[in-house]
């Protein structure tokens, strides 16, 4: 049987306790809000994209459960220094991972460390906790000025 430790792996517990890239980013040229009305998770993402299209910096503020904080922490770590043009693919790969069939192995090449979050598939009510930060970052990348939601 799927165990709690598969969801709350040590990496996730650690990132929740000491999240990376937490706080306001200076300078930044994109930002967005994310909100999960069901559980009250709130997120603000700051993003600095260079003229060459490189994500030079990304950070987040807000409050949420361990899954949402760890997911934001891992996400910011993973995309810092990558081309913004690759974001869409990363986003899709992450979405796919958290909604795919349990039997499917996560795509480690694209996802790397993010694969520790694949455990949320077993906890349907928690999937949006993991994906809120990705939707928020997408809003920031697209400058959509809409509060990101997971529904």
């Amino acid at each position, binding site marked *: *049987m799927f165990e*709690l*430790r598969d*969801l*709350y792996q040590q990496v996730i*517990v650690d990132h*929740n*306790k000491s999240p990376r890239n937490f706080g306001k980013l200076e300078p930044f040229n994109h930002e967005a809000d994310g909100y999960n009305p*069901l*559980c*009250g*998770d*709130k997120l603000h993402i700051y993003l600095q994209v260079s003229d060459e299209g490189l994500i030079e910096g990304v950070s987040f503020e807000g*409050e*949420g*459960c*361990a*899954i949402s904080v760890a997911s934001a922490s891992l996400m910011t770590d993973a995309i810092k220094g990558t081309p913004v043009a690759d974001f869409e693919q990363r986003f899709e790969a992450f979405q796919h991972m958290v909604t795919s069939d349990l039997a499917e192995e996560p795509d480690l090449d694209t996802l790397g460390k993010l694969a520790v979050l694949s455990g949320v598939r077993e*906890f349907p*009510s*928690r999937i949006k*906790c993991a994906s809120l930060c990705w939707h928020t970052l997408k809003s920031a990348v697209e400058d959509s000025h809409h509060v990101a939601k997971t529904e």
Partner: protein
Amino acid sequence: MFDIESVRKNFPILNQQIYGKPLVYLDNAATTQKPQSVIDAITHYYAHDNANVHRGVHALSERATKEYEITRKRIAHFFNARSESEVIFTRGTTEAINLIASSWGSSNIKAGDEVLITHMEHHSNIVPWQMLCERVGATLKVAPINDAGELIMEQFDALLCERTKLVGVVQMSNALGTINPVADIIHKAHAVGAVVVVDGAQAAAHMRVDLQALDADFYVTSAHKMYGPTGIGLLIGKEAILDAMPPYQGGGDMIRMVTFEKTEYNDLPYKFEAGTPNIAGTIGFGKAIEYIESIGFEAIEKREKELLAYATAQAEAFDGLRQIGTAREKACVLSFVLAGVHPHDLGTIVDREGVAIRAGHHCAMPVMQFFNVPATARASFSIYNTEAEVDTLFAALKKAQAIFA
């Protein structure tokens, strides 16, 4: 005598395993489980008596109508309403409040008037009044609460004035467990000429409600929090007030006579029951009330007090646990946050131990804002819960702490 084992046997759903562990259902403030008698009554109705009410001359329709109306009588008696014509069936508490706001509110609340509620209301006793105030240009006033989650009566008194046309108050808070002094509130509100809506969604399963003694103008509740089915609830109002109110919805059953020029409305309570009602739900509601009566409020209150005291003692001794809501007068609800563990993680973790609790804002976001927490975990108790189940909850909390240690 109260026999916990036989009470538990009345609720078939309790006898199951969740992830290989016995189910511990502690989400009773969200909805209670249903006794076999309620389940059987609904099945029996559909298997033997199903027909539309108030419109057929055939045997089934007469049977269905009889059951439906007997239930209304039983409910009137249960709440000590003045007569069964004061009992209006709705979809639940939410629809009942919207009915009052829409019908009574629109014809009685004007620009400059005030509606007074408390800081601990459920969204369903906030939003309809906000919408009404916006529509007519009235003002919504909120009586504050203290750190224990009790209404501050001096401030309530100070806010109550001749401009106050309506007071909305929850009898028992779903987020905090606080029991409000509604008799006192009603007395004071009447002194300034305001009418009072009592939200009994949480209270009605846990304490005797005597509407004539309370002198409540409007009382609302939901069957599903009283061991009855979802989708059925009620509004009980004073006949004189209901009589003067315009209908809420138009349609079948609420009319006496229709021409294209003019419609004559039906008498109470039918004036407010447009369309085919939830007949099976109503019959189930009646059985749920019969069930509560068979145990009796004396036994219910005694038992639930014991259980809350037992849980509270453990909560107080638990490292890192902060209770949200410590009113002197409270019942059945243990709302809390645990240092280092977010309520949602807690909800998921204890679920794997078979324990069902609620994590979130409990449809009372202003309460969360007051206590400056994003959410709380809430265990809420009922007559079928045991001390052993409380122990299982606290053992599961220990597990959650260990995961995040």
